[in-house]
């Protein structure tokens, strides 16, 4: 007997509706892991360091990086995320000394970052459309699509515009950038985010970076974060070299 077929049919759904009336709802943890709440980095990075080895630049990628470094140094290239407070992009948004908050709903996972008050909404269990669909919608944060793989939330993002860097040093990416975030709790108080970067134009192979966060129920995000105004004191968050 193919149970999933029965469930998929309208009859199955109607039966479920009757059965569920008056039943207790599933407790948290029985549907998918809880990663919601406020998280704050244990340390942060200005320069991304791959989990393994060196960043595998293509010749074009190396040239673009050198050009970005030079442009940022002499001021001819603007770091929009820090000068105009446009969204940082992925994965740079994760390497920030400011806290973030996660909201989970059955069909959406929402990430709210204090820095530049960015939010990203990941559609759950939706196959990402081909890249051609995003040509008309190039976003700073891309468009995100998530699904659960056991205890890990896998978020695929694509459709990035060209106004972001991968990190504060100007690490480049092209419009072909795809990122895959693997997010899970290591224990109740720690969140691990591993971001895999795929961009054939700039990097000859996928490479990954890792971020660690601490659960902070004592923190309220400052969503009044405004460009050009004083922000929260983050001097306690160490810079990773």
């Amino acid at each position, binding site marked *: 007997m193919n*149970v999933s077929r029965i469930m998929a049919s309208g009859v199955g759904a109607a039966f479920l509706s009757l059965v569920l009336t008056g039943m207790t709802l599933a407790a948290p943890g029985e*549907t998918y892991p809880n990663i919601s709440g406020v998280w704050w980095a244990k340390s942060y990075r200005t320069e991304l360091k791959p989990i393994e080895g060196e960043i595998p630049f293509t010749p074009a990628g190396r040239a673009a990086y050198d050009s970005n470094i030079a442009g*940022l140094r002499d001021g001819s290239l603007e770091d929009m995320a820090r*000068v105009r407070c446009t969204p940082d992009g992925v994965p740079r948004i994760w390497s920030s000394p400011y806290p973030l*908050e996660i*909201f*989970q709903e*059955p069909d959406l996972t929402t990430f709210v970052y204090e820095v530049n008050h960015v939010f990203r909404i990941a559609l759950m269990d939706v196959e990402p459309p081909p890249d051609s669909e995003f040509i008309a919608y190039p976003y700073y944060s891309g468009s995100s699509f998530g699904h659960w793989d056991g205890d890990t939330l896998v978020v695929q993002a694509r459709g990035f515009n060209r106004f972001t860097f991968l990190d*504060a040093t100007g690490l480049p990416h092209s419009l072909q950038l795809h990122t895959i975030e693997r997010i899970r709790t290591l224990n109740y108080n720690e969140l691990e985010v591993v971001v895999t970067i795929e961009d054939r134009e700039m990097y000859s192979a996928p490479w990954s970076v890792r971020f660690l966060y601490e659960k902070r129920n004592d923190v309220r995000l400052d969503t009044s974060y405004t460009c050009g105004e004083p*922000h929260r004191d983050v001097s306690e968050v160490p810079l990773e070299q």
Partner: protein
Amino acid sequence: MMKFEWNRMLTAAAVAVGSAILPYGQTLAEDITGTWQMVTRLSEFDPPPLGSGDARPIQDIRGIEAMRAQGVYVTYMGDYENPILQPWASDVVKEHVDAELEEEHIVTAQEVCRASGTPGMWSIPSMLHISQNAREVALLLQRDHQVRLIHMNRRHPADLEPIWYGDSTGYWEGDTLVVDTVGQKAGTAVDIFGTPHTDEMRVTERFYLVDGENGQKYLRLHFTVNDPDTFTQPWGATITWRRPDLTGPLAQVFAAPAFLGPMLEEVCAEGNRETENPYPVEARYRYPAKF
């Protein structure tokens, strides 16, 4: 994959019986989460509910019918003679009106995508998305990806420094989400007319569902503004939203194609400038940026 389909069937069925599961949030009798499109109106707030005791909000001095006749869809000239305004507030509103008469315009924070606090944030239609976890309800505005967090079942901090959105705490009163907001920094407008406020202002918001067209539920907000230094009495208004209408004439303006998710990424920040980055305090355009 089958495990997840079971979960989705559970959720869908539960929603079908009128009860929403929000696994890491409140279980609601009616679900206000999700995406909402403001029911279009002429930027003036709708009047407060009958029997609320609130005074009506400031309206345009030219009158709605006159403006409709002219085909004007955005209003900027507030009635500065409205008796709910304290004299200094009346002067501020009149300043805006005088500018309009000179064919200039003094912008409000919401118009230039800056943090505008509440109720200023409701003065321009924008797609709204409501998310929730066990501790917070998030109000996400498409307009320049603004965020406002409501801290559920908690108190305001004792040492609150005024900030643009202040501090919001909330609780459920039956099917109504009741939000109390204090500590909003003075300098923003509470409406499209530039009406000011002090940082003593207290705003109470009540979110609840009402019956709309075609058997749909609409989201309604009734807010009340208390600021005796600015207003001679509390005044209130309502805002109404519906689920996004992807077929109507405004779909292309406000609604994202379904495959992109509930909202467009709308970034107005290109005009802003981070003139000081106090972490650390040093020259701007420092390379590399500190994070």
